[in-house]
């Protein structure tokens, strides 16, 4: 299992950031290259700019912990995957967003982690501009 982790400090409250990150239907607002999203129950499908549609299972959405977890189920050849996003307060007006990726096969680790890096940078810019 390859395990990767990235984080970013956002100059906004944890509640404000969680309102966006914790909403599975809002992912296109902050994750680049995601152009459409559909959520039905615990199933989410995301259409990428490449035309590929990622299929995901939502595993955890806990407002009290501000934690969102999901699994990629296709069409990428994922044997095992867990994406975890934690929004952790750092005072009243600042928080840190920690995005972890655990995945098999290893070859996907850098691909997913690279996209996560873009997403966190975009999230910070989006939140702090608003």
């Amino acid at each position, binding site marked *: 299992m*390859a395990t*990767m982790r990235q984080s970013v400090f956002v100059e906004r409250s944890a509640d404000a950031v969680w309102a966006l990150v914790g909403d599975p239907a809002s992912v296109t607002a902050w994750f*680049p*290259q995601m152009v459409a999203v559909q959520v039905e129950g615990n199933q989410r499908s995301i259409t*990428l*700019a*490449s035309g*590929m549609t990622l299929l995901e299972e939502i595993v955890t959405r806990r407002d009290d912990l501000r934690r969102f977890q999901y699994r990629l189920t296709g069409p*990428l*050849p994922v044997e095992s995957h867990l994406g975890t996003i934690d929004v952790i307060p750092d005072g009243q007006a600042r928080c840190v967003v920690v995005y972890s990726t655990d995945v098999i*096969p*290893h*070859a*996907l*680790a*850098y*691909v997913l*982690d*690279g*996209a996560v*890096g*873009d997403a966190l940078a975009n999230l910070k810019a989006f939140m702090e501009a608003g």
Partner: protein
Amino acid sequence: MGRKILFVTTDQQRYDSLGCTGGRIARTPVIDDLAANGVCFDRAHPENVVCMPSRATMVTGQHVRTHGVWMNGVPLPLDAPTVAGVLHDAGYRTALVGKAHFEPFLDPFLRFEENRLGAHDQTSGAGPHRGFDHFELAAHGGVGLNHYARWLTREHPEHLSSYYPAIDIGTLEVNSAGGGDTGAPQVANNPIPADWYHTDWVADRTIAWLEGLATDDDWFCWMSFPDPHHPWDPPASEVGRVAWRDLDLPPGFGTSVDERAAILDTKPRHWRQWWDGELVSNYEAPARWVPATLTDDQVREVNARTHVENELVDAALGRVLAAIAARGWADDTDVVFTTDHGELQGDFGFLFKGPYHVDALMRLPLVWRPAPSTGIGAARVEAPVGLIDLAPTFCAIAGIPVPEWMEGGPLPISPAEAAAQKRERVFTEWDSRHPTGVEVHLRTLHRDGFTVTVYEPGTVHDGTEGELYDHAEDPLQLVNFWDDPVRRALRDDLVDDLRAIQAEWRTPVRSPQAPV
């Protein structure tokens, strides 16, 4: 009107693969003719032995630690200066046809411009990308985010599955499946007609771009063939050019399993660990392939197919040179031929590439045929040069001052000029961090006929290991003199020299965005 520049690269080609560099199997009359009428370099090294870092060095003229592409999967920064940009700004028309690979291939999110251009079948974006006006991209097969794949899908969809899948789509690892007559990894029979194979496509698209130029345009065209990089699946119609059963085994392969094992045991431990299938240090070879299983016949078949692919490249280059002549540009066109790095191709019992700084991967074919109108005579240069010197050479050809950010210098046109330039050493380095956490770091200097490699601490090495080869005494690098007390002073001198020329890393060191 200035000199035009045709920059021709292959991918993963050994020094000894051409007639002009001692090869006896592949017939390469076109490149041999360029060498006979130009400058042939006998000790050209890459600054890194995998594609993305080496190509980044070629296009920037910078060391790896300056441009920052330290392993495959790390994209060249978008603001990196390039020789194509310099030439473009000087009025040159610029194109790259074939394999670019300044940005990762594996890109489901379509984050990278090369892949966006390919996926959308566009030859340009909002403006020049990395200094190139025009891109038409290809890779090692018929699928992927590139123009060749789009063309094949559109024109010959019946051949989409003709190529061997270089990447196993189930694991996204380099495919270890065997084929051909011997079951060698990455060998397959490819029914695609030669005219539709990517080698001919690259030549066709190069010719088409050249035909669209005005007669008085100055131009720089990087024609970048994906071969002879694996998979070894040339068109089936061409495989009979070289009968694998007739080939001798390469001298670097050794005569027996026991001999190979004994040689590997004198080298730093990752050599033997890979051979035994106990270590996967990098992505560039099939993770599930155990080199110790490589048979004599598999080596012969891989070599035969490589020779075939090299012949096809040579013939394709001949067609492009004929098209240039037909435009009336022959006297004013410089042609530079090289590759990004070598291929183990049987040496020491291995195929593919990795953290192994020996001639198989580091000694490259490099031929520069200056424009005949310059009157520059033929020469062979044995002094060490690097791919880092290509970008400054292109500036010199164009009559443009070499920018300060380039770290090489224009290639010498003779041994005398090489001496005047104090061409004494060339530096190559390797860094890799596998997603499993395995890290390997090598720093290598070639000078005075010796190659010394020091290993920095990683997860496999503790920082005390090294390699020292005497090419005059041991041209196959079978004997590692690192621990030889007789050569300790020599080793120390070479290591001191290596440390003295190492630059600082550009910081921060950037993360890989894909395995390749």
